[in-house]
């Protein structure tokens, strides 16, 4: 059994409740979506919590109105619905508006990637990284475990602008220690090897670490970088790290070749004239209805830990 497993949302919400005790400007909106810790929050702050119902378009619009009046707004819903159902509301009333008016809004989407495993394609969120990256003035935060999710409370409360947090719906084992994780630069090196480097985000960092572990047992030491700022990480710092490798693999639980993490890394390679071979791991251009556990869903796309380990091994056997 893996120890120290917790849901990202409850850890984050517990931290937010502490902030709400001292900051009367924090307002929380939910689109009829909960969490055990949210029950505490709404019980404690009935004047600063509203459930807008299953109505994500209105969730965003109401959040915008509150933010224009100076509240620091958290809007909470299932990931595919808080991004895609209300995409144009996010564009107009958050991305566009925040360019001309000061606003502080954090969207919390729960259910990143395949984390609602058995709920099927409507509840999977495999488009959000790409489409949210398209919007100016929006930062994307994609934690890999509950520790880093919890460490994002301060940043989201204190940093003006629009932020999208993508949380796993499943409890995650801790990767980080509780003292060190959130970095302004937006990434952390979790495992240091030579030659090859996996850059992963969200749950895929768990898969990447497992792939690295497998390769280590087979005598191949590779690096794993967890990237959690998917819009504006410190590009220069990331380029400096990546320049040490001949082979870079991106791992995201989302469609590839569509503007997601793979694009971010290819653009860095281009901008900083880095010369690494590159492989994008993620979902190719189709939906699948097959049921299975999470690793099986990823294996359908050859995006699971053993697929990645085999690929890297093959690269170095040439």
């Amino acid at each position, binding site marked *: 059994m893996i120890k120290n497993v917790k849901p990202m949302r409850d850890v984050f919400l517990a931290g937010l409740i502490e902030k709400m005790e001292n900051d009367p400007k924090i307002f929380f909106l939910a689109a009829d979506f909960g969490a055990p810790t949210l029950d505490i929050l709404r019980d404690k702050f009935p004047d600063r919590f509203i459930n807008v119902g299953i109505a994500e378009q209105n969730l965003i619009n109401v959040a915008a109105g509150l933010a*224009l009046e100076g509240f620091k707004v958290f809007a909470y819903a299932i990931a595919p619905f808080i991004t895609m159902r209300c995409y144009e509301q996010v564009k*107009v*009333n958050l991305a566009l*508006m925040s360019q001309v008016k000061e606003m502080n809004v954090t969207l919390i989407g729960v259910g990143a990637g395949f984390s609602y495993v058995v709920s099927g394609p409507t509840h999977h969120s495999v488009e959000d990284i790409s489409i949210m990256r398209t919007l100016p003035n929006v930062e994307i935060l994609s934690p890999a475990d509950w520790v880093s999710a919890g460490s994002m409370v301060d940043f989201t409360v204190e940093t003006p602008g629009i932020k999208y947090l993508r949380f796993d719906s499943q409890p995650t084992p801790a990767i980080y220690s509780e003292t060190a994780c959130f970095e302004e630069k937006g990434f952390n090196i979790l495992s240091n090897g030579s030659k090859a480097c996996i850059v992963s985000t969200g749950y895929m960092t768990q898969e990447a670490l497992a792939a690295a572990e497998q390769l280590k047992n087979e005598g191949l030491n590779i690096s794993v970088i967890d990237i959690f700022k998917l819009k504006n990480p410190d590009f220069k710092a990331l380029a400096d790290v990546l320049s040490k490798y001949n082979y870079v693999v991106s791992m995201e639980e989302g469609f590839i070749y569509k503007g997601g993490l793979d694009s971010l890394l290819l653009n860095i390679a281009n901008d900083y004239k880095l010369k690494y071979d590159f492989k994008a791991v993620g979902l190719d251009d189709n939906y699948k209805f097959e049921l299975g556990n999470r690793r099986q869903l990823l294996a359908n796309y050859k995006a699971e830990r053993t697929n990645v380990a085999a690929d890297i091994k093959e690269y170095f056997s040439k």
Partner: protein
Amino acid sequence: MDIKLKKLLDQKTQDVWRETLLLHKRSPETRVASSLSCVELLVSMYYGDILKYNPANPSWEGRDRFIISKGHGSISLYPILADLGFFPEEELMNIGKAGSFLGSIPDPVIPGYETVNGSLGHGLGVACGMAIALERKKSSSQVFVMVGDGELYEGSNWEALMLAGHHRLNNLTLIVDHNKISMLDFCDNIISHGSLGTKFEAFDWKVAEFDGHDIETVHHHLEAARKDNSSGPKALIAHTVKGKGGGHLENDSLCHIKSLKPEHVDELLENKERP
């Protein structure tokens, strides 16, 4: 109504009608028909002591919030904002030109506009958020939002109508410019609104319906809504004529997308009075 106020509102209605036509002459891509149907509504809001505002400080905390959700159809607000000093009147000459902030669809880069406009169905939800915020801040400021009837086809409005009714947002007033014409046709030929008032009442809104071109009536209802702080959200349904005072555009089913030729504007302006 006070005779002096009546005289002022009548005069401003004429001025705004005239200036709106001139803006359209300078920038024919502007939506003139839907900007003409709401002239009395806007005049009454700004000159009738309904709205609290401060041209020297458009984001003054004590102001009322007025969201013009039907952004395209509010070119008639430009001359009002200029006249009141939100920006220099000379700016009206630059409408649609490179470097001007006066486009065919207004955004908050124009002093006096609260929100990004142009995409329909957003204003009422944002207004709900503002109304909740002002109530929590214990502010006496109120929130007004103006929508077109064609805009009400956007489903997001009805999400907001439900929320506002349920939460009894006493400081929120919706003004519907009910000119009966959407972009391509009469609303009745697209999807009939039936009785809008009945629909709003079913969502727990307090409703008033009136002739949106009768300045005394318009002012009476806006004033009543401004003073009423205990009936929940209020909907004012103003029955208007799309293209009012715009010659052959008046009530033309395609008037939303039609422009007036410069010589037609000149002909119309030969009359000293709005027809």
